[in-house]
C-alpha cells in the first residue's frame, strides 16, 4: 500500500479508519473487508463498527479501552494485509429497479444534466447504463450510497439545501446516486423517483440492500411509477438476481 490508512478522531468515543479521502472502488472494498474482520475478532471495548464509502467507524468505550491503545491495535491489524486488494463480500445480489426520471418525479433533472454537461435524455441514458454498487448504507436506515457514475457526474452538492425530498427520491452528486429511504432534507439533486423502499417495516428483512449488492435502473413513465407507489409491490417492483 502506498498510503497507510489514516486514523482520525470522531467524537470522544469514535475512531475513523480512512482508507482514502477521495472516493475509490478499492478503498470501499478495503473498508468492507476491514470492518468484517474487526467484527469477527470481537475486541473488548468496541461498542460498534460500521463502514462508509471509504472508511470504517469504530465506536469504543473510553472507560474500557483508551484511544491510544485502540489505535495501536488497529494499526497492527491494518499492517497485516493490503486491504485495498481485498475481495468483495460473498452473497451479493443484482437489483433491477424501476425509476421515473424528470418532471414531478425528478424536478432537478435538467439542472443535474446541465452540471454534468449533458442533455436530460442523455443524462437518463447515462444513469440507466451504469451498473451501480451499494458502497455503504447510511444517512438514514437502509439507505444505499450507489456508485459510480462516469466521471463527468462528479457534480457538486447544491449550495442551498432542499428542505424535503420524498421517500424514494433518486438524487445525484459526486458520481453517486441515492434512492432516499425516507423524506429528508438534502443538498443533492433529485433526478427521479423509485417505489423501492430501502427500509420497509412490512418486509423481512426490513432493509433489503447490503453493501456489495449491485443495482441498475430501469426507466419507466411517471404514470407507471405513480401506480407502483400506489400498489406497493414488494421492493417497489424491483427484480432481484443472485450474483454468482
Amino acid at each position, binding site marked *: 500500500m502506498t498510503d497507510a490508512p489514516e486514523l482520525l478522531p470522531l467524537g*470522544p468515543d469514535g475512531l475513523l479508519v480512512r482508507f482514502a479521502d477521495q472516493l475509490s472502488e478499492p478503498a470501499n472494498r478495503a473498508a468492507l473487508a476491514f470492518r468484517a474482520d474487526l467484527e469477527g475478532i470481537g475486541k473488548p471495548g468496541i461498542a*460498534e463498527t*460500521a463502514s462508509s*464509502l471509504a472508511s470504517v467507524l469504530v465506536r469504543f468505550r473510553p472507560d474500557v479501552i483508551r484511544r491510544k491503545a485502540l489505535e495501536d491495535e488497529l494499526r497492527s491489524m491494518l499492517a497485516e494485509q493490503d486491504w485495498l486488494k481485498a475481495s468483495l463480500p460473498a452473497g451479493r445480489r443484482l437489483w433491477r429497479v424501476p425509476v421515473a426520471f424528470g418532471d414531478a418525479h425528478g424536478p432537478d433533472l435538467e439542472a443535474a444534466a446541465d452540471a454534468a454537461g449533458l442533455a436530460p435524455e442523455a443524462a437518463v441514458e447515462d444513469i440507466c447504463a451504469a451498473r451501480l454498487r451499494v458502497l455503504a448504507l447510511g444517512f438514514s436506515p437502509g439507505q444505499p450510497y450507489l456508485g459510480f457514475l462516469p466521471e463527468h457526474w462528479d457534480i457538486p452538492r447544491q449550495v442551498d439545501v432542499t428542505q424535503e425530498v420524498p421517500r424514494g427520491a433518486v438524487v445525484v452528486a459526486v458520481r453517486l446516486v441515492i434512492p432516499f429511504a425516507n423524506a429528508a432534507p438534502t443538498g443533492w439533486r433529485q433526478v427521479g423517483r423509485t417505489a423501492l423502499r430501502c427500509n420497509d417495516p412490512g418486509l423481512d428483512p426490513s432493509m433489503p440492500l447490503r453493501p456489495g449488492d449491485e443495482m441498475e435502473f430501469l426507466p419507466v413513465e411517471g404514470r407507471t411509477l405513480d401506480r407502483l407507489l400506489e400498489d406497493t409491490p414488494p421492493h417497489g417492483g424491483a427484480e432481484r438476481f443472485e450474483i454468482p
Partner: protein
Amino acid sequence: MTTGLVVERVGPAASVQDLGRPGWLKVGLSRGGAADRSAFIEGLALVDLPLGTAGIEMAELGGRFRFEASMRFALTGAMMRATLDGERLDVGASQFAAAGSVLDVGAAESGVYAYLHVAGGIVTPVVSGGRGFHGIGGLGRLLRAGDVVPVAPDPAPDTPLTRLERLTGTGPVRLMPGPQTGLFAPDMLKAFEEAVFVRNPRANRQGVRLDHDGPPFSTRAQLNHASDFIAEGDVQMTGDGTPYVLLADCQTMGGYPRIGTVLPTDLPRVAQVRAGEELRFRFVAVDVAEADWKSDDELLASLKRARIPQSRNPRDVADLLTYDLIGRPPEDVAGD
C-alpha cells in the same frame, strides 16, 4: 398490569424518548434518544429508573397529562411552569400524583427540551430496540392529544421524594477536532472560536442552525467531499457555510464538512439554547474530550448520589394517607 398517562393536550413536537438505539450505525440509523441526555438521566435518577426506561420529551411547549393511577413522577430539563391539580410544582424534583390528578405543563420559560418521567416507566412497544420517536429513521411518531401512553405501576410509591440541583455549564461550548477540521484554514478556525452565534428558529431533533455576522465558514472544496460518518455533536457547514450543530436524530453520513464535534457533556446546552439566544465555541484537544467522556451508567450513578431529600410541609400534601409517614432513612434510597 399497566396503567395509563392520558395525553389531554400536548405540543406539536413531543414524543416518547429513551436513550436511543445504539448499534445500528451499520445500517444507517443514528442512536437518537433524548435531545438532552443529561436532563433525561436526571429524571431517571429522581424516580429510581434504570437506563433503558422511556419518558416523554416535550419541546418548547408542554402539555396536559392525567394520571390514571397514583405514582411518582419528575419533570426535568427546560423550565416549564407546571401545576398538579392547580398546585405549582418544581422542575428537577420527584413528585407524587394521586390517581386522577392532572399535570399541566406550560410553555418553556428557559431552555427547549423538558422530560416527564413516571416511576414505573413508559411501556410503549419496543421497535428496533427502542421506544423513541426517530424522525429521519422513520421510527415511532409524535404524541397527539387523546393518546393514552401505557405506564407500568410505580413499584415503590412510598419512596421519599428527592430533588437535584441543576448544574449547567457556562462559558463557550467545547468542541474537539474531527476528521474534516483540517480542511478549514487556521484563520477560519480562529474566526469560528471568536464568532458569537445566535440560534436560528430552524431547529429540531436532527440539528440546530446557527447564524452569525461575518463571512461564511467554507473549505476549499465545500461541495465535493466524499460523504463520511457523522457523529452526534458535529458542527456541519452546509453549502453556503452556515453551521448546523447535529443532535440526536442526525443523519449517520454526510458530505458537508464538519469543523469539529461538540463534547457530549456540552451538547445538551446546544439542544437547550432557544431561538435568538447566543452561543460561542472553543476547541479542546482530543485527550481533554476523552477525559471528559462519561458513560450513561456513570452519569446516572453520580446523579443518584447527588439527590437531595425534599422536606415537605405536611399541610401542602394533598393526600397524606398515600405517604409512608414513618418513612425510611433517606440513605436507604439515596444510594445506587
